[in-house]
């Protein structure tokens, strides 16, 4: 993710009042999460595993915090148990921003078999868990997508995932 996308996301998060960001650092979003960590506006937390990161976001969100989890497709797969509980069992509203690893355009050098796995699993996984999502691949769409996803999370009472790809990420 380049600096322009990162700064744009930070500005929109502030406009939306999302002041808590949780992550397990991963390469495509590292510049974003580092910039957030350096910004005193945010409560920034690093977790040891995606499952407890999602559980953490669920607790913070139900306590009234506006919180976002930043991860990738592998992280969503690791966090499936917690995500399913947050989405289907309880309906807890918070944003998840996920790098859409394996999408066409990912030249990161990860073995193709892994990229293919991520590409094939990402959307079916979220659909199976009944987690609403949308794909954001243009910087010009970021503002509306984050605003709409934040609204939808509270309207649906559910986590909502933004899958970042295209010029937003690569």
């Amino acid at each position, binding site marked *: 993710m380049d600096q322009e996308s990162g700064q744009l996301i930070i500005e929109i998060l502030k406009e939306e009042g999302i002041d808590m960001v949780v992550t397990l650092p991963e390469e495509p979003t590292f510049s974003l999460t580092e910039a957030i960590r350096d910004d005193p506006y945010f409560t920034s937390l690093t977790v*040891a*595993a995606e499952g407890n990161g999602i559980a*953490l976001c669920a607790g913070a969100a139900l306590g009234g915090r506006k919180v976002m989890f930043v991860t990738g497709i592998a992280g969503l797969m690791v966090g499936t148990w917690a995500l399913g509980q947050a989405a289907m069992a*309880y309906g807890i509203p918070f944003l998840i921003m996920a790098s859409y690893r394996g999408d066409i355009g990912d030249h990161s050098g990860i073995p193709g078999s892994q990229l293919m796995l991520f590409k094939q699993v990402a959307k079916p996984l979220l659909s199976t868990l009944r987690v609403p999502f949308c794909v954001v691949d243009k910087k010009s769409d970021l503002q509306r997508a984050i605003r709409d996803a934040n609204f939808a999370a509270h309207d649906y009472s559910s986590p909502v995932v933004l899958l970042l790809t295209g010029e937003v990420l690569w």
Partner: protein
Amino acid sequence: MNRLECLKELVTWIDANVPVVTSLSSNTAIWATLRQEGLNFYGLNMGLTVGFSVGLSFAFPNRKVVGLDSDGSFMVDSSALITMAEANPSNLMILVFDNESYQLMGPTATSRATDLEKMAQGAGIKNTATLRTLEEFIRVVKPAVKETGPHFFVVKVETGTVRLKSDARLTYSPFMKERFVDAVMKHPDYWGKKASGSF
């Protein structure tokens, strides 16, 4: 030591504004019997209590937040200890009721070599203890409710001595969550009053 006796003590040490999170099964059944009103999130599924409690502690930074977990549930995601140590919420207390068993399905690893307190210490949590008697529980946990944490206590309890049945509508259903959210929004420290927008 008996879990019910411990929780009967704990419930008298915390006020109505203290958020409490319970793992499913015995912790939920007992806590729902002892504390039916206030900020109670009952019945979290396996491996979620510590992470959820850490998150909740950031929504109520000026209140003690208590997480009641059990050995079987805790071990599903013991990496949450590292997250807890990293986040270092000074208002969080985790109590793992360790009966060294999966109820009727046999012993857990804590009945053999696994030491949950040492795991917490290894993760970087400084305030830890393993409590084996009710007297120890009272001596250590009661003051900790008022002290700076985070705290992580392993409470060794007997297996299967308390069989309470909780009202599933109040403890495991969407209605439980709605009651919790309602209590959050009425709480004097409700974060949403400070932040823009609605819950």
